[in-house]
């Protein structure tokens, strides 16, 4: 899983103004340069209006021509003759709202949609549907003929993920993957994503307003504020700057909040802890030493 030398996705001086030329124009991205390498797991974090959704759109080029360049595997996707269809077969995006993304009304048909459109033969498609549904924890025989509208929000989100997995894209982009889910749905989805992360050699981009799940799924954070990258680095390094993150209205993982409290009584207590296990071990260590 080591990062390759040339980036798989690269943004160079990318700028984008939403509704340019109208009275409601918003400068969504002001000069972002960003490299994402193969196998990296990057979280793009920022408060509402920070430009993170526009950045996701830029990755698969769902925008007008902005200024600056976007490269995928060294090729400029903004160039006139570039095959964006191919780009979208390489980068799978799971959007925040599964209802926008699901195109068929039967679960199996929706998961089969992408491969079919890409011209993959029926037999192979069926295999992928089975595999993808099972991978998201929706048992294939039970769910393949289910109507999408009769599923819960969490299940629909899984169908959306399965639809992208069936494309076997090397890059997976998730926009606010757990927003709006109840605790069970959230936990199950996180387990599923952690599992995918382990089993497949994915380049993962997670877009989020908070660091709660980003800290579990990703090891590099790119923090946006008002269309600019204000921090970019290993997750634990960024988490150390909790005051700055709070200023940007980015919510911290609860583990970090607890650790910050404990730092008041144990001055050398590290605050960049990501999991409950780490926190537990650190407390036991401090108690043992005290």
């Amino acid at each position, binding site marked *: 899983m080591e990062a390759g030398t040339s980036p798989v996705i690269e943004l160079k001086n990318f700028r984008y103004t939403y509704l340019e030329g109208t009275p409601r124009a918003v400068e969504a991205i002001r000069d972002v340069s960003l490299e994402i390498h193969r196998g990296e797991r990057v979280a793009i974090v920022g408060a509402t*209006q920070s430009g993170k959704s526009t950045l996701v759109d830029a990755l698969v080029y769902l925008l007008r021509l902005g200024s600056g360049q976007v490269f995928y595997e060294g090729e400029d996707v903004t160039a006139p003759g570039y095959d964006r269809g191919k780009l979208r077969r390489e980068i799978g995006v799971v959007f925040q709202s599964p209802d926008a993304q699901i195109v068929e009304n039967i679960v199996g048909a929706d998961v089969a949609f992408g491969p079919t459109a890409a011209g993959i033969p029926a037999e192979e498609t069926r295999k992928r549907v089975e595999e993808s549904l099972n991978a998201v924890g929706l048992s294939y025989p039970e769910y393949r003929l289910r109507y999408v509208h009769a599923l819960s929000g969490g299940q629909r989100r899984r169908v959306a993920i399965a639809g992208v997995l069936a494309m076997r894209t090397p890059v997976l982009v998730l926009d606010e993957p757990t927003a709006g*889910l*109840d605790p069970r749905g959230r936990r199950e989805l996180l387990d599923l994503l952690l599992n995918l992360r382990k089993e497949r050699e994915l380049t993962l981009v997670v877009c989020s307003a908070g660091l709660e799940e980003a800290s579990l799924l990703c090891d590099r954070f790119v923090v946006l504020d008002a269309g600019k990258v204000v921090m970019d680095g290993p997750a634990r390094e960024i988490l150390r700057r909790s005051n700055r993150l709070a200023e940007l209205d*980015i919510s911290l993982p609860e583990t970090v909040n607890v650790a910050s*409290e404990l730092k008041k009584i144990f001055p050398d207590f590290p605050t960049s802890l990501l999991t409950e296990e780490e926190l537990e071990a650190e407390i036991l260590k401090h108690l043992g030493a005290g």
Partner: protein
Amino acid sequence: MIEIEDLSFAYRTGEEDAIPALRGVNLRIGPGQFVAVIGHNGSGKSTLVKLLVAVLYPTEGRIRVDGIPVRPGNEWEVRERISVVFQDPDDQLVMNRVADDVAFGPENLGLPREKIAERVHSSLEALGLEEMGERLIEDLSPGQKQRVAIAGALAMRPRFLVLDEPTTLLPAPVAARLISTVRDLNRSGGMGVLHITHSMSEAALFDRVVVMDEGKLVLDGTPAEIFREVDRLRSIGLDVPPAVSLVHRLRARGVPLEGDILDGADLRRALAALAESPAYRRCSG
């Protein structure tokens, strides 16, 4: 006072058999109480809300709001006492300008203009929106829209405010500020609050937590009492706040933490106390 006795409700959907959404719920909520209701999707929370404001009527059992039985014919009296804020402000705001929307409810009551103006003003002020009366709602952020919705509910001067997952679509910091505003309203105005949520950390901020599962009320108590039931909560698809979960782990490892611990600050105090305690010094020394 909201009194719910042996409440059952089943939706009748076409040809299929009636699915029970609520089964034998008993619940009393006193005036001015600050209560969170938790439960996974489909546990019956939202059905309960619709029954409370007479949008649906009980299949069995009784609901009384300030002594008024909730039944056909009484709906308007009940709705003058309970206001509801729903999950998505886009679906519940009616008018296009902030002040007009906040005025919508009082206008329906047929109040004189001066009274409406006064209620609109004080409700906007309570939510920190006093400068926004003339703004168009479509230009506001989701958090601001949800505040407008709460102001609209407040303008009805209800005895109880029911919040039906109003924070689900908001980023955590925005949600936290909203809850703290609601807490202030509860403290200053004595209005009862019933907050339905998925967030265990939010529930921990309330005085009382009611847990629902499969249409039944399964737990009812203070947050400390409720979050003691870690395994029970997890088995019904819920969770506990991370600090509680951590304390659970530490206690299992034999760390003698005292008292009710709901958040990081509680844990800090407990650990500080522990470090001072002679018993602990003896065993670690």
